[in-house]
């Protein structure tokens, strides 16, 4: 890999993989479960309505379909949600911010603090119930280029947001000084 990376200097950032990644709050599992449950409920309701309108003829087919959906739902509720939460970790360093997520599709997203345009803490109704918030860090790369850290206790989210904002300001001062 030496030919790949001609700029290895003492300024090179330490490798990400060995850093002390922080897990998100386990209560986020509850948020995911409720969301899954709401979807399940809507699908089952639609199925029941369909059976009610079309009579009992459709019952076996719909029954199998709903059975499949419920199986998938159970999988999402009891396997996917806890594992997803376990696999979501974030890392804030002096100069950059990272989030890694994924049950099957692992992805690690990174952005430099000097590219941050603005930061935001959002909280949906279910998250509010659990006292959790989501930190969103926006960069200038258009619609998809934000870094989202879900499942943070609200005060932590605000603390991280303040920290990031300070870092961004510090970066700007540094830029201006140079």
């Amino acid at each position, binding site marked *: *890999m030496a030919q*790949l*990376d*001609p*700029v*290895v200097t003492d*300024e*090179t*950032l*330490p*490798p*990400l*993989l060995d850093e002390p990644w922080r897990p998100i709050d386990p209560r986020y599992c509850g948020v995911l479960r409720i969301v899954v449950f709401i979807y399940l409920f809507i699908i089952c309701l639609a199925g029941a309505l369909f059976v009610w309108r079309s009579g009992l003829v459709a019952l076996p087919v719909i029954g199998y379909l709903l059975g499949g959906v419920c199986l998938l739902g159970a999988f999402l509720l009891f396997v996917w949600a806890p594992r997803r939460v376990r696999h979501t970790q974030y890392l804030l360093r002096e*100069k*950059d911010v990272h989030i890694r997520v*994924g049950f*099957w*599709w*692992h*992805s*690690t*997203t*990174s*952005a*430099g*603090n*000097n*590219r941050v345009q603005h930061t935001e803490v959002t909280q949906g109704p279910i998250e509010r119930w659990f006292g959790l918030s989501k930190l969103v860090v926006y*960069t*200038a*790369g*258009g*619609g*998809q*280029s*934000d*870094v989202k850290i879900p499942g943070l206790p609200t005060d932590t989210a605000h603390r991280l947001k303040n920290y990031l904002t300070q870092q961004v300001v510090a970066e700007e001062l*540094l*830029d*201006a000084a*140079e």
Partner: protein
Amino acid sequence: MQPNKEWQRVSPIATIYFFVKSIPHLINFWPALVPLLAGGETLRQLALMYGVPALLVLLIVSVFLQYWFFSYKVEPTRLTLRSGVLNRKRLTLDFERVQQADIAHPFYFRPFNLATLGFESAGSAQQEVDVPGLSVQAAENLRQRVLEQAAQSTEDGTIDAQPETLDREPEFSLHLPPTEILRYGLMHNTLLYLAPLAAPLGQYLGPLIETSVASLEHSQVYGLVTWVSDNLAVSVTLVLALMAVMAGTALLFGLSVILALVRYWNYQLTRVGDRFQYRAGLTTIRTRGFKHYKLQKVTISQGLIARLLRRYTMHISKAGSFSAAQVQDNQRFIVPVLDIVNVLLLRGELSLPTAQWLSVSRFYLVFPVLTLSVITLAAVVTGWFTLGAVSLLGLLFIPLIYGYFWRRWHCLGYYRSAEWLALRTGFIGFTERWLPTGKLQKIRVVATPVSRCFGLAHLQVWSADGVLTIPCLPAAMASDLRDSLLTDVVNYRRAWL
């Protein structure tokens, strides 16, 4: 144009600009056509007598009001516009945020020595501002001020009021003669995509052709058609259809060439200091410029026809045009046609290094080839029962699939130099995209369940103008590349937006 605390109006000639701008809005009156079509003859008479003049008066009044309520104010660091008749709008544009400044000389302004000054600013919603009807001198001065200030305020925070690059000799200049522009018209035939739309017309054309065949019979042309049809033993209809297709294609290419000539007539690219600028156009002469430090992406591409003509096209993007495909060519900084010498010269100007392309893992082709081959096999097996041995011909698709993906893999390459990350893709032609590594916005390493089994990962990088994916890198290499790119980003201390 000196800074001025007063609101100023543009030249009255600008009413032509507002008039031209208003015409598309007339489409909003289309519901009025419904009663006209449904109503009787008298209604149509009345509409013609009173409706059309009323509409014209409305148009003229609205154009005049738009002109009357349009005013601008130039301050040392920003431009403020007031516009709108009923919905008053006030727009403030900081010079520092300007990504691109254009001057357009539409044909209706040229006799009066006026121009339209256009700015594009960065932001999640890209904003465009037009100031029509400035004198050419004033527009040129204001544009200079904006570009100079945009650069200087980011460099040392001070503002130099005296633009000085205006009369400096360009250090690099490139002129495209009409023959080259003509090649662009052939290379980028956007109208060709319209061709399938013409197909439904075929059913109406059929009877028309038949009747015209009857009248053609005695003419010279028919002699040619029958000669071709006799000698090649194909039917007259087929010959006629082929001729129609050829004539249609020729027409599309002709139109495309004419459009290219109108848009890029007398194309002149110059560089003064770190400022690039081009000037081109037949009916509307457009001057477009940007500063080198605002560059976010360079795209060099060569399509099928371009390859035959041995020409290349280069796009230079600034922040904000990521809002994707609808950004048309006439809004981007483009160098339409380049031969290989000019490509090398321009690459030098932009300090793009010579790339030594690295291949991604061969797994890039294994997965799609395997999946598609399995599907083909399944189709052949099911076909065996219904069609018999003929279905074995389907197996011929497998080498084709392999050949296609092998070629895609072969053309795919990435390159990382000290300051650039480049990706090359292609099948017959190619597209090279170059991103300055210090300006990357976000970097992501993705491992899918399948790729993880093979120890591979995809690297995605977001620039301020779009995303670039390098697929199928060994996982360790992907994270090393990510770490080194991230180092470049956090250490990049110059102005970048």
